[in-house]
Each structure stands twice: as C-alpha cells, then as structure tokens.
C-alpha cells in the first residue's frame, strides 16, 4: 500500500469503547477495507502515519453503540428474581 491508495481512514475502538483505540480502518481507492493494527512495525500503519503527515485527516469515530437490549431472562437474572418469585410479586 502507498499513501495514494488510501481513500478514507477511521480510528476503531472496542465495542465497549474502552479508552484505547484498537486499530485504524482504512478504505482504499478500490473500496477495499483493511484494519491496520496500531503497531509501528506494521508498514501499513507507517503509511497511514505518512498519510496523516501529508495533511489528511481520519473520519470521526463511529458513535458509541447503544448497548444491546437485554432479554427477559437476562432482566430477571439482573434483578435476582426467579420466574416463580416474579409471579408471586404480580399475584399470578
């Protein structure tokens, strides 16, 4: 890869959005998507840094994803209830 191959880039974070980024998502001019590790020994990462030095900017990170909704069973477990206890509470 060379800097002229890069169309866009975007910093990636883990799904729970920990503070440290995990990789750089690069889309090439041929619309090929590559995830580049933040490793100075990786030549794609070296080229990405050179691309930045040339005045290019990465796209903003994706918004923090909404947590996936809990299933009814997971909600019960989170509340520390069994189904029978819930039925008892509801009088059914």
């Amino acid at each position: 890869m060379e800097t002229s191959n890069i169309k866009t880039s975007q910093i990636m974070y883990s799904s729970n959005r920990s503070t440290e980024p995990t990789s750089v998502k690069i889309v090439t001019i041929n619309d090929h998507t590559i995830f580049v590790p933040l490793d100075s020994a990786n030549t794609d990462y070296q080229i990405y840094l050179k691309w930045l030095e040339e005045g290019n900017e990465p796209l903003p990170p994706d918004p923090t994803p909404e947590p996936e909704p809990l299933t009814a069973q997971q909600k019960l477990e989170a509340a520390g209830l069994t189904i029978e206890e819930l039925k008892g509470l509801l009088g059914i």
Partner: protein
Amino acid sequence: MGIQINGQTDIISATDGGLTVSGNLIGTASTATAAATAYGISGSATLSGITSISTINLTVNGNAYPSAGPLSNRNLIINGAMQVAQRGTQVTGVTTGDYRTCDRFRFAMASLGTWTVDQDTNAPNGFSNSFKVTCTTANASPAASNNLFITHPIEAYNLQSLGFGTAGAKGLTLSFWVRSNKTGAATVALLQTDNSNKLVSFEYSISSADTWEQKVITIPGDTAGVINNDNGAGLQFEWWLNSGSNYTSGSHQATWSTFSNTNRNPSNLGVGGATSDYFAITGVQLEVGSVATPFERRSYGAELALCQRYYQIITTGNGFTRVVSGPSKNWIYGQPMIQMRSAPSVSADITGTNANRTYVFDDGQTGHTVNSGQNLVLSDAGANTNSSYYVSFQSSIVGYNGLRQPLAMTTGVIFLSSEL
C-alpha cells in the same frame, strides 16, 4: 619404454609441453608455489590427500562454487523464482504501487502509466515463472517526481550474518534473469534504510530485446552501516524501470554512500514510455561472496511458508479455529498458519449462503428472506500480536429492536498482511 628417473619408469615422456605419467603421482605437497603456473590434468585423474583448495573462483562443470558463506540456504531472496503468487496471477489496470501477483516483490510507482502485472509463465530454462509488468497506458515524458520500479525488501533478522557495520562486513553477489522489449543501460539500486540510510547503485545492460539474459552484480560490504537485528527492512533492492529527473540526475554509487534520490536511477531504461513496453524478472539470488553460484532451489512448500511470514490467506478450510455467533454479530478468532513478521493488517471477504432461509425474530414476526450468496458486512477486525487475529461481521438484515441478525458463515477468506 618410459623414461627412468631414480628408478621410476612410470614417467613415459617429458617435454616442454608437459610431463606425461602413466602411474601415480606421489609425494608430499609443497608449500612452494608458482602462482602464475597452471597445471592441467587430463584423463580420468584421481587426486587424493588434498586437504584444501585455495581459490577465489572454483568452477566445476561450469558451476561456480561459493567463495564465502554457507553451502545451503545461500539465497537471501524469498520467492526469487517467482513460484508463489498468493494474491493471484494477474492484475490489470494498475496505477498505484502495491504487492501484486508474485509474493515479496512489490511493484512501486508514482504516476507513471497504467500496467498489467503478471506471474508469467515465460521464463528462462530451468524456471517456470517470472514477474512481468506490461504497460497499457504509456507516459512518454515522466514528470520529475514520477517513478516506477520493482522492489524486494529483506527482513533485517535474515541479514545478520553479513556483519555490516563491522570490520568483517561481507560482500554480496546479486544475480538475476531479466527480459524486456527495451534494450540499453538500466539501474539496480540497493538501499540500507534500516539504520544508516545508505545506498549503492549499479548499471547493467540489456543487450537483446525479448531475450532472457542473466546479470551478475557484486556488492561491497558496508563496514560502517549497522543493520539492526530486528524485524524491519534491512536491505531493499530496486530494479528501476523508469523515472523522472529527481531519480536520474545523480550517478551510480559502487560503494555505500549517503542516500540520495538522485543516485537511485542514473541509467534510466525508460520502460513505459510506450504502450506494450514490458519488463520481466526471475531467478533472483543474493548470496554472500564474490561469485554467482547456481540458483538455489527450494521446494514450493518451503518457499510458500517463507512468504507466509509476510502475507497469508486464511480460508474456511485451512485456518478458522473458532467462529462464535453473537446476538448481532459473528466473530472469528484464529492464529496465522505461520507466525507473522509483525501484527498483521486484516481484511476479509465473508459470504453467507443460507439460501432462502427465513428468520423468525424474537417478537415472533417473520423476518426477511436471505438471498443466496448474500455478502456479510465486515464490521471490525484486528490483530494485537503477530500470532492471533479476529474478525467480526454481520448481515444487513435488521430485526427486532434494530438488532442485526447473524448469518451462518459458510465461505470466507481472511487476508493477513505484515509485508515490509
């Protein structure tokens, strides 16, 4: 009746032209030498008791033997016979530099035409493949900064035996076969950017068009430029095809000199000045010493494994160690088949083939029908080390509460790259 000397009769004649002996030559090897004298032995001679042969160039049946370095694993070039082409055998419409077709040989360019890159089957006797680039859109007047060359970087770990940066730095010999429609002077350069940022560059000549020719270049050792003992690029060869004046305005450097772009391509071959210009190369060997020995053959499997340290393709059949289906994504975790040079870049092409499968979402609604061969979307991937990677992917089918429904991945290809 032979001539008798000291009672020996095996000497059958002695003239100014030579000494003819019918029996054995016996005696004690003398340290006295007549260096300029060459002795020839004809017939089916047997020499015994020789404990060493001191010679710069030893040739037996036309084959040179190493003047230094090991007798095996001599070739420091990976895929010099262009056998391995994991990325495919042909790429057309090439206008930017990258690794294409033959492994470990990168086609580099800056705004100099459009090209077809092949792992070609036209090769000199004894070889099956070559790395060939053919111009499909010419650039007859390259701008100063335009460039075009084939490059092969060598990992520094593999170069420590050279002793560069010490008084015992060893010289090298590069040999390769080349074929082009263009004739005349050309340049091959060698960069040592790892530490000292130096360069040597040499002129060679292509004598006949459309003809395989072997070229041999001897390269001095560098007593002043240490090659770091690491996984970076220790040396980088460049076979120049064409360039603008930024690369041609200097001169060849027979000894290691401070890096300068102007000295990289002083003899410009000019491939790509016209449509259908081509340049092909194979049989590339770099070895310690001052002679080019016969090309060292490695098995295809050994060559492939060497290439996979830098690039490898994982498919559903050869490397997926664990696929996990989550509520909205599928995850693949795996280890490269060969430990890679560094944490690799990861890309993937994953396809779901659950033909006409109808999903029933959590709310009981009947979901979408998945078409055969639907591509899954690569959503994330990465590798934190050189020995593990992960890929996550999801379908485009959105169901209950906006969750994307995972498909069972049935075919998939993952590309791992830690090229130099």
